């Protein structure tokens, strides 16, 4: 009969399919994937899939794998055990007072899982088929980066400036430099100058007249030279080289060479 021929063809196709499964077992993504693939042989909407038939197909698949001595991962075997249990639940009427969910509930959940997995696969395929960036849609080829231009501005306060200057000048007290000595006559210089001329000075003469050439006019220089020369006269007086006198307070200071007999 036509029908029986069809059935035979169907079962042959099933066998071929299940053998393909077995050969390809490594290519499957777990027991749920195998179940989903097996369910396709039922050629019905996933919502109408016969879980009982599916359980039998799966158990056949595991059996065939065993005969072919293909080692199945533990979760495939766990699924087989669970499906065997489900099968018995579906075939045997529930005993009154029996605990746990019914076979129908379990079957419905498995059907839900299969449908959900299939749905995820379908949308994954739709997702991957979208116009994708770098394939159908393209981003800008020449981009301009926002350059973070770091502008460094330097700053200093008047305080920094003055502190800086003060720092240098504080250092300078130990390290005199020529520039600032321009208007200063040192004691040594005054002594040198005075020693040279005092030998000829027999009469009293104003101290101011002994200031070195060029130091008497500029007030700054004059002040420094006066002080240094005065200090020098004291030094020479101590050495006994000259004598000095002052008529009154704030009167002019006079000096002369100390007489030999003095």
């Amino acid at each position, binding site marked *: 009969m036509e029908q029986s021929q069809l059935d035979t063809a169907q079962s042959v196709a099933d066998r071929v399919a299940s053998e393909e499964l077995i050969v390809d077992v490594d290519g499957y993504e777990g027991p749920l994937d195998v179940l989903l693939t097996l369910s396709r042989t039922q050629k019905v909407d996933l919502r109408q899939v016969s879980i009982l038939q599916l359980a039998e197909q799966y158990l056949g698949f595991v059996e065939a794998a065993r005969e072919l001595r293909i080692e199945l991962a533990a979760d495939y075997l766990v699924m087989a055990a669970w499906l065997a249990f489900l099968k018995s639940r579906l075939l045997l009427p529930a005993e009154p007072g029996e605990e746990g969910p019914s076979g129908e509930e379990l079957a419905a959940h498995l059907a839900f899982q299969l449908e*959900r997995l299939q*749905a995820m696969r379908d*949308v994954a395929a739709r997702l991957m088929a979208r116009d994708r960036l770098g394939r159908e849609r393209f981003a800008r080829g020449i981009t*301009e980066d926002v350059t973070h231009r770091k502008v460094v501005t330097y700053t200093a306060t008047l305080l920094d400036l003055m502190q800086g200057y003060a720092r240098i000048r504080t250092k300078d007290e130990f390290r005199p430099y020529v520039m600032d000595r321009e208007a200063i006559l040192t004691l040594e210089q005054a002594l040198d100058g005075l020693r040279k001329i005092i030998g000829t000075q027999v009469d009293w003469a104003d101290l101011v007249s002994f200031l070195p050439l060029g130091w008497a006019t500029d007030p700054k220089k004059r002040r420094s030279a006066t002080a240094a020369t005065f200090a020098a006269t004291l030094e020479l007086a101590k050495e006994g080289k000259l004598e000095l006198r002052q008529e009154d307070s704030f009167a002019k200071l006079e000096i002369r060479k100390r007489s030999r007999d003095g």
Partner: protein
Amino acid sequence: MAEPQEESLFEAPPLAEQERMAEAILFASAEPVSLMEFAKRMPHGSSPSEAVELLRRRYEGRGVQVVKVGQSFAIRTAPDLGFLMQRETVEVRKLSRAAIETLAIVAYHQPVTRAEIEEIRGVAVSRGTVDQLLELEWIRLGRRRQTPGRPVTFIVTEQFLDHFGLENARDLPGLKELRAAGLLENRPAPGKEDDDAGPVVDENQDELFNDESDT
């Protein structure tokens, strides 16, 4: 999101000028530019959202388009002209079936834990699969699930939306149908109701998808 309109002492440039600025900024970047980034770069008082909207309309039907990607905007070539760009095609690493499925599960079920992905696929998710998606920056970690063990969740990124040309996660193909069919529900296995299967409809998920759509 309403553009924060700060009161400013400075006159913002005319809208047409703002549009030019938005255009220059968008053209200069390969990555989507967020409204916040626009605001940072455009003169004070500008209204980036208006400027970008003007620009989006201006480029309708042109060879390049202004597209919205999450909270950001980008210019992309029109998909129908992709054939001209063979040269620019970047060789994308072929994703494994596991990676593709995992990506779809994250996209449609986000935020989703690793355990939930495994439950849906019926098989363990290898570390490499998740790592690959993280590396592509198509998924990232979301908030931890407030269930025992506080597992991490995964969600898709703006790069994901950009890559697949989605304005937001709500635009995922078939999302409404899947939801209507109850296939996005986290339905616990019978007899496992006592387990920590979490709420049937994750509050976070609704929030996540709605957040996108509100803006």
